[in-house]
């Protein structure tokens, strides 16, 4: 059964690259890990690092070098600070942890949380450290939702991970279910991702614990939409899925946790899709924090009239210099100018709003309800046949933040 939910939009182009495996890129791309919060350095600028070298701590999470090369210290880029490593292209690697030997059934929350911290596992949906998310969501979680949906129909990262990393995905989900003492895990995916659905369904042995939910193909898949589709309930303002007993993580997060624990290697790679608006591109396995521009250039998706968008053309943002922890897709988008016409009161913005707002009411008058309740998904502005910049009118400061 396809689970429907109100709001969201159907985007025209589907990915052409769902069948292509992840290519591992090595190259000599510089990497940069964004500095967020209290950070202490374990090395000095100019020191040499191997892949897996522990070179910094950020808010209690150890940071490991995803490539071998030279640590360049803290650099500035577009107002953000990064811990940069100049990639030497060498493949030397250090192993700091032993592969996990304990069976999942013997692991407790604190143990899994600590391993997630030590192995530097970050959530691919939110970009937050997994151990912090687990710590904050200790009690009352009944369902673990593993988000296998794509950020954009042009992306195929998660669909491909479901096919290629099925065992790790299921194992990671079980680890988190165990950690939070939840009663079940649900993999949510778009209903048109048939290969991914069958890969998951065929490998689930305990159907009372794990299941696959097929969602209507409408973007973006915000937590508001996922919660509504699965539980037919709404998140109030300020309410988190954990307040409803639901813990949502990205598919890559579950895989990263399982693989990191199994191999005793921290999470140092990311799985992403790099593509153009025509749907052509590549699924790539890249080092964490890889520089984005060289990826676009090497995929021959860069020209004078394009710019790179992270995750989604609907609610994504212009790419920074380095890949962020929550980036799953890089799309090269053509710059387009649009003429704005006056509102024709077609009501399409109301129909696509995931939180039931009436975005047209912002025209000519500031509406505080809209400003307070808008989740800045961009659906209203996408659908408007008069090209009215509704989102920017509702919440200019909100869109500014998301750029």
């Amino acid at each position: 059964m396809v689970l429907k939910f109100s709001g969201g939009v159907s985007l025209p182009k589907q990915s052409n690259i769902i069948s292509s495996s992840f290519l591992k890129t090595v190259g000599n791309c510089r990497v940069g890990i964004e500095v967020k919060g209290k950070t202490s350095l374990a090395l000095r600028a100019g020191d040499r690092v191997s892949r897996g070298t522990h070179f910094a701590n950020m808010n209690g999470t150890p940071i490991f070098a995803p490539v071998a090369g030279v640590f360049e210290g803290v650099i500035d880029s577009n107002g953000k600070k990064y811990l940069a490593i100049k990639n030497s292209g060498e493949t030397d690697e250090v192993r700091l942890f032993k592969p996990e030997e304990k069976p999942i059934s013997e692991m407790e929350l604190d143990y899994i949380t600590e391993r997630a911290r030590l192995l530097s596992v970050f959530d691919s949906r939110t970009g937050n450290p997994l151990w912090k998310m687990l710590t904050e969501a200790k009690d009352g979680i009944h369902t673990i939702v593993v988000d296998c949906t794509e950020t954009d129909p042009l992306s195929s990262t998660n669909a491909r991970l479901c096919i290629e990393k099925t065992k790790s995905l299921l194992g990671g989900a079980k680890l988190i279910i165990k950690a939070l003492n939840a009663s079940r895990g649900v993999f949510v995916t778009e209903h048109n991702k048939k290969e991914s659905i069958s890969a998951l369904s065929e490998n689930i042995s305990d159907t009372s614990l794990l299941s696959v939910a097929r969602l209507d193909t409408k973007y973006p898949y915000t937590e508001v939409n996922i919660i509504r589709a699965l539980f037919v309930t709404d998140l109030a303002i300020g309410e988190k899925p954990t307040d409803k007993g639901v813990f949502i993580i990205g598919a890559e997060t579950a895989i990263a946790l399982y693989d990191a624990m199994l191999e005793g290697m921290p999470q140092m790679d990311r799985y992403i899709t790099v593509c153009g608006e025509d749907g052509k591109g590549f699924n790539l396995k890249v080092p964490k924090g890889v520089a984005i521009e060289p990826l676009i250039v090497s995929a021959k998706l860069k020209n004078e009239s394009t710019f790179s968008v992270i995750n989604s053309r609907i609610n994504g943002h212009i790419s920074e210099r380095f890949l962020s922890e929550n980036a799953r897709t890089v799309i090269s988008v053509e710059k387009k100018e649009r003429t704005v016409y006056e509102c024709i009161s077609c009501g399409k913005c109301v129909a696509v709003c995931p939180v039931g707002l009436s975005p047209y009411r912002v025209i000519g008058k500031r509406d505080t309800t809209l400003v307070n309740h808008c989740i800045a998904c961009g659906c209203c502005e996408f659908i408007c046949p008069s090209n009215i910049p509704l989102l920017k009118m509702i919440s200019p400061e909100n869109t500014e933040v998301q750029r």
Partner: protein
Amino acid sequence: MKKFAHPFIHSAETRTDIAIDFMLALIPVLIWSVYIFGARVITLCLLGGVFSIGFDYLFQHFALKRTKDASVDVMSINYGILACFSMPVSAPLWLPLISSALVVFAKNLRVYRQKRLFNPYIFSAAVLNIAFPKLMTAFTKPFAYFSAFDISIDSRLLNGYLVRSPLMYIADGSVYEDGAVPQLFGYASGALGEIAILAMCLSLCWLLYKKQADLTASATFVFTLLILSLMFPSADAESAYFAYSIVLSGAIGFIAVFALNESRTVPITSLGRLAFALVCGALVFASRKFFGGYEWGYLIILLMNAISPFIEEFTVQKPYNAIKNRKKE
């Protein structure tokens, strides 16, 4: 560095596409009308469409000082044709000129949050019915084809073909004597675009398929009329005959299909449209029962158009994520 904020993609559907969807919805009615009344229908509608877009261009260019989007509103053509739909085939060829001017005036009349005060083609129909009652009610026999190019029809010729419309029967305390089938197929006399109920149903299906219409409003309007007619019959006929006579006569189909789906003059919210259609249905029924003879539906729609922003204000849906706040309050 120049920055762009999301979304970075835009739906392919433009307002011109929407106008074209509406234009295609007019085709079944137009074809059937040409079959019933002859080529003069084409001349009238062509004049209506051309004059409307022309006047609209001039109005926007010179009165509103718009230069960029002055020429692109295809919807003006639709409004011009729809205005002609409420005329009889015997209408003189200068009448579309006046109707187009009225359409453009109403089209550019704004009151609140960019909402139009009146539906342009209903405004035109209402004004023409008041200003030229004789011309607007000179209904002729079906298949009596008149010249497509005569500015006006010779009155001696016209008098030989004049017939009473089903609405006139109701005004006299009677019902249309040939039954429902001629009204469904448009063989009863009436205005160009208002007679063929089945053709209008096709138009509605197309608009629903293209998601440009809301069945709630159309169905509520028709059902309200039907139920009230069955509950409070009058005329020297059984209640069922009276009911279908009310629903199939005059501009009911035209209002249900086109006027109630003219988004800029009806509430956007579903609940608002439902309330709008319900009140319209009740008022149209009352007008036919107590003040028959004239198509009061036009004036009722205009009245409701004027208050639709207020209906919308009262029926705006609460955000889903306001639940907790509501409970707290």
